[in-house]
């Protein structure tokens, strides 16, 4: 039955927003956990850690998210597990986000001057302490801006979950379109909601990036020290 587009329809779309937000959060937490593991494995310098992590990144950055989603949706049923669209979407988005966060965070870890790590080794610190007390605090500062940028990507990616029937805002838009036959207005509203979610994050990311860029520049000019690797260390000392 065709009905005109009314405010109830907007409410329906807005109610679906919780799934978009919930899925974004699940993907970000799951992806963050995987991403941390990937970043550590990739920057470990040990082949038996870095090669599996690199393979993971290539597989998930080299195939479309939609295919990953379909594989997790239909693949789980092969193991006899009946997954809901929500579970399948959370799994696929986490795995996908993990690959992107892992690569970004690896870059942040490797951006820390190697002298920092060397100093930690010289002090006899365990790698866990080196990471937590030396690498992490410095890497975290560079990582914030690109991580917020990836969060925007995650929010937008949740729209793909509409393809397996999860009623988040894109799917809600499709449902409303089917009854009101006003696709232009409906999808404009849906796009507007995504924009309202993502734009502040994009602005924040840009602002953080600009700030870290200026602070890096001033630090470089003020104190031209920091990389100790160039100095040869006498072994007989």
């Amino acid at each position, binding site marked *: 039955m065709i009905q005109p587009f009314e405010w109830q329809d907007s409410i329906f779309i807005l109610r679906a927003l919780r799934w978009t937000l919930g899925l974004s959060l699940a993907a970000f937490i799951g992806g963050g956990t995987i991403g941390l593991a990937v970043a550590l494995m990739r920057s470990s310098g040990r082949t038996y850690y870095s090669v599996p992590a690199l393979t993971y990144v290539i597989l998930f950055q080299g195939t479309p998210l939609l*295919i990953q989603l379909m594989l997790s949706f239909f693949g789980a049923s092969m193991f006899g597990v009946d997954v809901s669209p929500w579970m399948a979407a959370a799994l696929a988005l986490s795995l996908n986000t993990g690959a*992107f966060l892992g690569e970004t965070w690896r870059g942040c870890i490797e951006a820390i001057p190697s002298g920092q790590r060397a100093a930690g080794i010289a002090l006899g610190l365990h790698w866990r302490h080196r990471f937590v007390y030396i690498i992490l605090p410095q890497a975290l500062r560079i990582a914030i801006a690109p991580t917020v940028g990836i969060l925007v990507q995650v929010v*937008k990616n949740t729209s793909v979950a509409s393809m397996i029937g999860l009623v988040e805002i894109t799917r809600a838009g499709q449902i409303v379109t089917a009854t009101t036959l006003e696709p232009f207005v409906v999808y404009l509203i849906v796009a507007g909601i995504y924009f309202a979610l*993502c734009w502040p994050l994009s602005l924040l990311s840009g602002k953080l990036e600009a700030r870290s860029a200026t602070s890096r520049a001033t630090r470089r000019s003020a104190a031209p020290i920091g990389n100790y690797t160039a100095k040869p260390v006498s072994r007989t000392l």
Partner: protein
Amino acid sequence: MDYIFHFGDVFRYSGELIDGTLTTLRLALWAMVLGLTVATGNAMVRTLRIPVVDMTIAVYVEVIRNTPLLVQAYLIFFGLPALGIRMNSETAAVVALVLNVGAYSTEILRAGVEAVPSGQVEAGSALGLRPGLIFRKIILPQALKIVFPALGSQFIMILLATSLMSAISTPELTSITNSIQSQTFRSFEAYVVSAIIYLALTIFFFGVFEFVARNFLGSTLINRMEVR
């Protein structure tokens, strides 16, 4: 797990899979070529420093970058006919992809243009070159060289994003895979095969971009996977 794989059922549709792969490639190549054209046009117009135009470009970039490609495609394919603009699904897919990759490339190229030392432009005008010529012969080649790795990873992302065009029934690889799985009920096998094809395409494009970057530009794509 007592599941027996039946890839044979999927391979009976290899003709369709090849057609789908070619459509995916066609979409991706159009998106790359026209997207870069949009970006270059925007970069050129930006050098004129007309506030209204600059503002329009900025709004275009921000709107596209902060909304999902899927919704953009729905708006173009399902929404625009309400305004009297009709196109078939493949044209709509190309339009959506070009608008999308155009916005990202515009932003990438903007950074590249800003990275060209201002002395280059001054040298150009000191030589008496017209602004159009300065852009074409001095700014653009250097900017493109600087941003090539970022553009390359963006192009690979749009290659993968073409799979979303199955939602507006463009007969590309994902769309073909969907219909194979609904005919054979070999869902997992069908999607594994298409995942492998996508991976092969990604590696191929990565190889081409890497080859160009290494041999002609002295840069590399590795470590440059951009945030979308």
